C-alpha cells in the first residue's frame, strides 16, 4: 500500500516528537536535567582522567603511558590484574553455577539458609574476605600458625588474592546465574526427558545452551568487578604481586603523580569497557519474557540422586567456608589481641563505637542521603527510557549505564581531578561522596527498573493518562508502585554499596568526612586486626538492619492509599 498525500488544499502536516514534547514538558525537563547531571558527574570526570593522563607537564603527549609501560613492575601489574580477573571470573562462574543449580534445580534441604549465606558476602565490604583470610592464614593466623604450626607460610600474593576475590565475587555470579536458571522453564527439561534424552544430554543440549548468555554475562560482570577491586589487592596482593588499581592509588596518594595515576587508571579502564560492551551486546539481545500466571511445574527429575548429592556436598562446603570466614571475623572482633591473646573482650567494639563514632555517623549520613536519590533516579531513568520517546533517549541510557563499566579507581581519580576547582569545587565535602555513590550505583537501579517495566503492560500507564493523569502523576501513582520490587532492590543496592564501597571513595574522603571502609583499611594497615574486625561487624549489622527497614518501609508506604491522592 502506498502512502497517500493529503488532498490539495489540505496539506499533510508533519509532526515530530518535539511537538508532542511541548505538550508534556515534564518529560522533556526531567530528561534534560538528568542528562546534564550525568554529563557533569559521569562523563566530565572521565574526560578529566583521560585529558590529565594525556597532558603530563601541560602538553599533549603519551609520555605518561610510555613511561609507565616501560616499567617492568607495571607490566607485571597489567598481566597480574588481567590474569586474576579472568581466573576469578572463571572460578566464580563455575562455583556460582553449581551453587545456583543446586538451589534452583534440586530439592536439597536448607536451601533458604544456603541462599542467605551466599548473600552475606554481597552485603559486606568487598574486603571482608581478605581480613578473614589474614586472620586465618596470615602471620599468627589460627589455621596456619595455630592449627598447622607453620612458621613461614605466606598467604600474600596470587593465591591469597584469588581466594579472597572468589569468596567476594562468586556470590555475585551465583545471584546472576540464579536469576538465569529461574528464568528457564523446568518443564523444558521435563519435555526433553520425556522425549527420551538422558540427563546429561538434557543438561548439555537444553539447559546449558539456554543459560549460555547468562553465564557469559556473569563472567563479564565478575571480570569487571575483579579488575576494579581495590580492597582485596591492597590487603593481600603484597608488593611482590603488583595490581593496577593499587598502583594507580599509590601513584596519586603516595607520589602525587596525577598523570601517572590517571594513565594507570585508563589502562584499567580499557579492558573493563571492552567487557562491558560485550556484556551489553549479550544482554541487549536477550528477549524479555513476561512472566505468565501459570508457574511451570516440574518434578525436578533432571538431576540424578548421585549428582544431587555431590552438588549438595559442594554447596555445603562453600557455605561452610562463608560461615568460617564470618565466624573468624566475629572472633577477631571479640578477641583481646588476635593471635597473641585470644581471650574474649569487648575492647575492640568499645574502641570502634567511641573513637570511630564520628566515622560511623558520617558513613550513615552519606549512605542515607545517597540511597533514596539513587533509587528514585534509577526508576525515573528507567521510566523515561522504556516508556517515553524523546530526543537523545539512547544517549541518556548509555551514559547512565556507563558508570557500571568504570572501575572505582577511575571514578575516584576522575572526581578529584574534575571537582577540585570552581565552579565545581567539591573536594572535601559530603556532596562529592554522595554524588559519587548516587551516580556510581544508579545503573543497577536503572537496569532492574527497565527489566521490571518491560514486563508491565504499558496499557496500565496509558490507562492512567487516558483517565487524565499527567506524566508526573502517572509516574508517582502508577509506575512507582508497580516497579516496587525493582525500587526495593535499587534502594538496597545503593545503601549497601554506599556503606561498603572503597575503591572510589578512598580518593574522596577527607578529615571532615571519613568512611568506615577507609577506616577499616587503615586499621588493617596499622596491624589492628581486632579493630578492623569489629568495624566490619558493626558495618554488617547496620547493613542488615537497613535492608530490613527498607523492606518494611516499602511494604507500608505502598498499600493502596485511600483518600490522600495528589
Amino acid at each position: 500500500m502506498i502512502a497517500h498525500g493529503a488532498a490539495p488544499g489540505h496539506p499533510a502536516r508533519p509532526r515530530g516528537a518535539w511537538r508532542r514534547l511541548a505538550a508534556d514538558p515534564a518529560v522533556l525537563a526531567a530528561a534534560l536535567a538528568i542528562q546534564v547531571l550525568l554529563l557533569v558527574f559521569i562523563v566530565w570526570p572521565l574526560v578529566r582522567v583521560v585529558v590529565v593522563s594525556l597532558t603530563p607537564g601541560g602538553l599533549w603527549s603519551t609520555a605518561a603511558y610510555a613511561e609507565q609501560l616501560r616499567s617492568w613492575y607495571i607490566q607485571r601489574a597489567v598481566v597480574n590484574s588481567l590474569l586474576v580477573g579472568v581466573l576469578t571470573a572463571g572460578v566464580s562462574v563455575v562455583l556460582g553455577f553449581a551453587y545456583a543449580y543446586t538451589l534452583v534445580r534440586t530439592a536439597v534441604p536448607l536451601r533458604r539458609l544456603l541462599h542467605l549465606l551466599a548473600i552475606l558476602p554481597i552485603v559486606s565490604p568487598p574486603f571482608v574476605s581478605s581480613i578473614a583470610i589474614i586472620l586465618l592464614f596470615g602471620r599468627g593466623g589460627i589455621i596456619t600458625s595455630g592449627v598447622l604450626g607453620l612458621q613461614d607460610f605466606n598467604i600474600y600474593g596470587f593465591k591469597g588474592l584469588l581466594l579472597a576475590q572468589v569468596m567476594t565475587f562468586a556470590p555475585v555470579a551465583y545471584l546472576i546465574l540464579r536469576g538465569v536458571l529461574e528464568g528457564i522453564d523446568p518443564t523444558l527439561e521435563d519435555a526433553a526427558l520425556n522425549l527420551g534424552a538422558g540427563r546429561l544430554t538434557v543438561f548439555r543440549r537444553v539447559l546449558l545452551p539456554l543459560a549460555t548468555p547468562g553465564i557469559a554475562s556473569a563472567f563479564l560482570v565478575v571480570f569487571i568487578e575483579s579488575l576494579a577491586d581495590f580492597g582485596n589487592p591492597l590487603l593481600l596482593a603484597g608488593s611482590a604481586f603488583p595490581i593496577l588499581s593499587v598502583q594507580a592509588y599509590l601513584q596519586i596518594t603516595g607520589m602525587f603523580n596525577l598523570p601517572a595515576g590517571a594513565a594507570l587508571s585508563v589502562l584499567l579502564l580499557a579492558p573493563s569497557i571492552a567487557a562491558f560492551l560485550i556484556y551489553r551486546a549479550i544482554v541487549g539481545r536477550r528477549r524479555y519474557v513476561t512472566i505468565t500466571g501459570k508457574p511451570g511445574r516440574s518434578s525436578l527429575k533432571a538431576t540424578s540422586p548421585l549428582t544431587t548429592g555431590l552438588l549438595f556436598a559442594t554447596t555445603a562446603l562453600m557455605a561452610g567456608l562463608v560461615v568460617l570466614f564470618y565466624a573468624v571475623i566475629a572472633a577477631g572482633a571479640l578477641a583481646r589481641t588476635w593471635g597473641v591473646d585470644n581471650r574474649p573482650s569487648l575492647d575492640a567494639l568499645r574502641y570502634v563505637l567511641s573513637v570511630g563514632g564520628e566515622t560511623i555517623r558520617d558513613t550513615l549520613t552519606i549512605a542515607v542521603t545517597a540511597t533514596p536519590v539513587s533509587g528514585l533516579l534509577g526508576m525515573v531513568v528507567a521510566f523515561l527510557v522504556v516508556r517515553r520517546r524523546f530526543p537523545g533517549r539512547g544517549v541518556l541510557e548509555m551514559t547512565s549505564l556507563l558508570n557500571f563499566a568504570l572501575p572505582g579507581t577511575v571514578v575516584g581519580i576522575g572526581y578529584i581531578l574534575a571537582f577540585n576547582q570552581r565552579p565545581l569545587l567539591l573536594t572535601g565535602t559530603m556532596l562529592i561522596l554522595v554524588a559519587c555513590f548516587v551516580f556510581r550505583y544508579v545503573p543497577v537501579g536503572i537496569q532492574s527498573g527497565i527489566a521490571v517495566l518491560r514486563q508491565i503492560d504499558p496499557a496500565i500507564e496509558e490507562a492512567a493518562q487516558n483517565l487524565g493523569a499527567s506524566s508526573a502523576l502517572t509516574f508517582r501513582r502508577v509506575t512507582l508502585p508497580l516497579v516496587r520490587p525493582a525500587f526495593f532492590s535499587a534502594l538496597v543496592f545503593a545503601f549497601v554499596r554506599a556503606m561498603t564501597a572503597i575503591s572510589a571513595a578512598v580518593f574522596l574522603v577527607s578529615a571532615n568526612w571519613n568512611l568506615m571502609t577507609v577506616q577499616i583499611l587503615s586499621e588493617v594497615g596499622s596491624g589492628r586486626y581486632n579493630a578492623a574486625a569489629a568495624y566490619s561487624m558493626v558495618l554488617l549489622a547496620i547493613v542488615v538492619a537497613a535492608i530490613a527497614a527498607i523492606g518494611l518501609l516499602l511494604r507500608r508506604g505502598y498499600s493502596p492509599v485511600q483518600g490522600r491522592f495528589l
Partner: protein
Amino acid sequence: MSAPALLIDRLTKVFADPAGAAVVAVDDVTLAVAAGEFVSLLGPSGCGKTTLLRIVAGFETPTAGEVVIAGERVTELPPNRRDTAMVFQSYALFPHLDVFENVAFGLRVRGVAAPSLGARVAEALALVGLTGLERRSPDQLSGGQQQRVALARAVVTRPRLLLLDEPLSNLDAKLREQMRVELRRIQRELGITAVYVTHDQVEAMTLADRIVVMNRGRVQQVAPPAELYARPATPFVAEFVGKVNLLEGRVTVADGDRWRVALAGLEAVVPARGPVPPDGRVGVVVRPETVHLRRDGPLRGVVRRTTYLGSQVEYEVEVGDLRLQAIGQSPLEEGIFAEGERVGVTIGFDVAHVVPLDGVG
C-alpha cells in the same frame, strides 16, 4: 446541525519498522461519528484499527490529518487532556489498587472530593453490577468482572468519547455474548458516543449502529449492519462480513434495473448497480442461505461436502463449473443430503448483489 462527537479527518499514520521501511498503518481515513452513536471498527488483524483508536486517544501522533472531538481540534493534545475513556484489550487495571480505587482514579485526578466521589463510584459499579466488590484487588476477579471494572472506570468520568479495543476478546463465548448485551445497554443508558474495535463481525453486527470496515489501513465501507450485509461495497467487504459465494462474471445485457450476467456456464439475472464497468466484468455476491438444495429442479448439481452444524447443514455443491456454498435449514425437518448425492439447486440471484472487481469501490 451541531459538530459531530468525533471527526477523524484524512488521518494517516506511517510507522518505521525495525528495518526502517515505512509501514502505513492508517491510510487517509476520514470518519464522522454522531453524538450518542455506537460505531464499530471492523477489519482483519493488522489493518490499523488499534492504531486509529490510539490516535484518537492521543497515544500515537498521526503522520498527517486531524482529530476533532466535539468541534475541538485535539490532534496535538496529550492523552490526559482529551477526556476520552478507553477500555483496553488487556483491561489494564491498576494491579496495586482495589476495585474502588481503580474506578475512582479518574475522578481523583479531576479533583472530585469525598461525598460525591463515593457516590459516583458506587453508581458506576452498580451500573456494571459489581456492587459489593469494592475492596477486591483486580487479581481476585474473574475475567468478566475485570472487564466490567475496566468499563466502570472508563464511564465513571462521563467522558466525551468511549473507546473500546476488543474488550471482549479475552472472554469465553457465553460471557462474551452476555457482555455484548450489557455493553450496549450501558452505552444507551448513558448516551455515550462509542467507538468499538473488533475483528469479530458478529460482535460488530450485534453492537453497532454503523460499522466501519477497514483493510490495510483504508476504509472499505461505512454502513449500518444490515446494509453492509446486503450491499457490500467491495469484494473484500462481501467476503469479510458473513459467508459468501463471490462469482465472477460479465454483464451481457444491461436492461434498466436488471442485468444479465454470464457466469461460468450459467446465465443469471441480478439487480443492477450503477453504471456497467467498461470491460463488463463484475462480481456477483450470493449469500449461501439464498442457495437452496431440493430433491429435484431444473438446475442439477452434485453435493461435494456436507458439514452438520445442528440447526443447519452447510453444503458445498458443484453446479457445472461452479462450486457454491449452500445452507440447509432445520435438518431435523428437511433432512440431510449426503456427499456425492445429485440434487436440484436454486440460486437466489434476484436478491444477489453486484460488486466491482477492480479493488476499492
